[in-house]
């Protein structure tokens, strides 16, 4: 272990904040609205310190707080019946949902967006998107076993599209392959509505034994709070709030985000290290550090536990010793984890992290004060009730309005288009379809993904769903598919979301697996646009009603707003992932004709 270099930079203390109530604070540049800033002052009974302001700003961003979507997402819970819950071990609200798949095994999965970073720096943005979702899976106590990627790019003929496509695909390939996770499927779709706003949604699946399930919370007064993994640097500072709270095309120079650089090797080592820590029962819980870094991990762990935590921030190991306390709180450096460790287990913990060459420092401990207190070189710079940061953020009932254009769009039916009248025209049309980017073979992408690693991949491309064996003895396995159709959703978000669900459901069912759970990534324009908010409300309602009808629960997911170029929002694109189970992967059904002489049937209407 190395000790942190003390930083000479003095920070704004709680005492100083109390003494200087009138000091101007850059809350607007951090993405907070005047009312939000006022409400922070009210919660604290004083002005926030700059460290507190950093924490509230990132945690109250749309990306972290779900402030515009929360009222709608509640439907996913309220529309879940007992019967739908029967296989559910962990539902919405945790890092990832967990489903019982039988024989003492459980599966956890989640899909998440990394859209804006992938436009700015496609390779690193997509790579760190994979890294982030995988850490969510690890924090549940599961071994990650597969990834998928649902991608949407601009017009294939636009000069900028090549930069984005090749960067994103090689970023996913680099990170996933280097992590040793088979990529078992995904989607690739081109449409000019995604021109300056590609969608990069990454999904990860993990497996665990029932008894290995862990939830991330800070319980047990006196337990140590330990940060381990990569050192903290200046990566993506402000990324969470600045990137996700405003359309970045409007951003001036001060809003220019720093990107994050991913290190899949460090993450691979971290996976093995975490699994060994869980297996030797050396940790009470582990929380991944994603957007909002230490701000998020400390306030969420404390909120989900006994409610108090004391941190000495100067103990954070830094890659860049010039970082200020506020920057350390906001840094989005990748490949970091926070663990809660009993004092008597600390030595065992340190032995395991040392074996894996993972750097570690003890930051503080769990308390019963009900406060999250953070010191910086002996001075108190944060003293908040953790729930006010992590849980009870602002919630907005944004105005909703029925889109003025939608009836005309629906009336403009494809039946008005000219039909080919000659064999030549028909032939030309078939060729155009076959040659179109969205229908053409995707092997140029999927050949860059390892499907073999781990030796359990039963189905992958070009199959409709990916399938992985969980239990080598029995052949028990799961299948997953992701689907979405932004054009259907543009016409009718309620039914469009249901069609995405139905397609993913079908793609799982045709592999021979039984669908059991849903995760979703809801990609929309700005929630401050009432027509977008209408689309969002309809899509969520459609998806929740669809899940009721299909009798499978939503176990988690992610909302990505502010996907737009200038004022033009993307088509509403709720990506739906369905997970199914199969008692023996040897019974899987591949897509494609296997043998001569088989009969062909068309089912349905």
């Amino acid at each position: 272990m190395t000790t942190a270099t003390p930083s000479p930079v003095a920070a704004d203390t709680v005492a100083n904040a109390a003494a200087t109530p009138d000091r101007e604070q850059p809350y607007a540049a951090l993405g907070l609205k005047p009312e939000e800033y006022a409400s922070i002052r009210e919660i604290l009974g004083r002005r926030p310190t700059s460290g507190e302001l950093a924490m509230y700003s990132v945690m109250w961003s749309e990306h972290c707080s779900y402030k515009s979507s929360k009222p709608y997402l509640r439907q996913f819970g309220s529309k879940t019946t007992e019967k739908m819950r029967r296989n559910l071990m962990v539902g919405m609200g945790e890092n990832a949902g967990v489903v019982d798949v039988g024989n003492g095994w459980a599966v956890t999965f989640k899909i998440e967006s990394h859209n804006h970073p992938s436009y700015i720096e496609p390779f690193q943005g997509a790579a760190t998107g994979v890294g982030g979702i995988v850490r969510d899976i690890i924090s549940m106590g599961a071994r990650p076993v597969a990834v998928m990627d649902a991608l949407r790019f601009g017009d294939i003929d636009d000069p900028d599209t090549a930069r984005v496509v090749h960067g994103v695909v090689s970023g996913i390939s680099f990170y996933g392959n280097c992590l040793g996770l088979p990529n078992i499927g995904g989607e690739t779709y081109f449409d000019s509505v995604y021109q300056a706003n590609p969608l990069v949604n990454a999904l990860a699946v993990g497996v665990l034994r029932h008894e290995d399930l862990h939830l991330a919370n800070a319980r047990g007064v006196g337990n140590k709070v330990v940060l381990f993994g990569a050192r903290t640097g200046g990566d993506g500072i402000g990324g969470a709030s600045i990137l996700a709270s405003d359309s970045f095309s409007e951003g001036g120079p001060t809003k220019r985000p720093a990107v994050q650089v991913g290190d899949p090797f460090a993450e691979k080592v971290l996976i093995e290290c975490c699994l060994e820590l869980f297996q030797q029962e050396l940790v009470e819980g582990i929380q991944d550090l994603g957007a909002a870094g230490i701000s998020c991990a400390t306030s969420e762990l404390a909120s989900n536990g006994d409610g108090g935590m004391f941190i000495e921030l100067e103990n954070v190991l830094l890659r860049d010793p010039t970082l200020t306390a506020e920057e350390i709180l906001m840094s989005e450096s990748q490949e970091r984890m926070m663990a809660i460790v009993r004092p008597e287990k600390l030595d065992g913990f340190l032995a395991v992290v040392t074996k894996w060459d993972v750097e570690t420092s003890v930051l503080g401990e769990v308390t019963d004060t009900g406060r999250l207190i953070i010191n910086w070189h002996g001075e108190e710079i944060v003293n908040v009730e953790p729930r006010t940061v992590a849980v009870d953020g602002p919630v907005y009932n944004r105005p909703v309005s029925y889109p003025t254009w939608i009836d005309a769009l629906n009336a403009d039916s494809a039946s008005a288009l000219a039909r080919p009248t000659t064999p030549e025209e028909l032939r030309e049309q078939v060729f155009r379809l076959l040659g179109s980017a969205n229908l053409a073979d995707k092997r140029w992408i999927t050949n860059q993904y390892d499907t073999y690693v781990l030796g359990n991949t039963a189905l992958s491309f070009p199959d409709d769903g990916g399938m992985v064996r969980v239990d080598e003895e029995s052949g028990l396995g799961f299948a997953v598919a992701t689907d979405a159709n932004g054009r259907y959703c543009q016409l009718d978000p309620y039914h469009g979301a249901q069609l995405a669900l139905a397609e993913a459901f079908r793609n799982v069912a045709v592999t021979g697996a039984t669908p059991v759970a849903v995760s979703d990534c809801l990609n929309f324009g700005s929630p401050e646009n009432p027509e977008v908010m209408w689309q969002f409300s309809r899509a969520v309602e459609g998806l929740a009603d669809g899940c009721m009808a299909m009798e499978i629960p939503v176990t988690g997911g992610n909302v990505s707003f502010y996907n737009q170029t200038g004022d033009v929002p993307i088509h509403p694109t709720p990506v739906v992932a369905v997970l199914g189970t199969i008692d023996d992967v040897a019974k899987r059904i591949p897509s494609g004709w296997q043998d001569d002489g088989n009969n062909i049937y068309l089912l349905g209407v």
Partner: protein
Amino acid sequence: MPTIVVEVMPKAELLDPQGKAVAGALSRLGKTRFTGVRIGKRFEVTVDGEVDAALLAEVRELAVDMFSNSVIEDVVSVDVLDAAVTA
């Protein structure tokens, strides 16, 4: 043939996983005098004819626009290779 050398390094504030891995290897080998390693790129561009100021300016522009990605890298230098140095 004259050669122009362009050197590009990862931005100091960003993680350099490659350099970190090499630094780790050095310390495992007991080489404790080294405090860090960063790994960048060295481009050798060969030129037909003389290198004049205009061409050098053109390479400087290319270095920023094409040889490096300004989001994550900095161009450290653009120079005509001194023949003596290659030896």
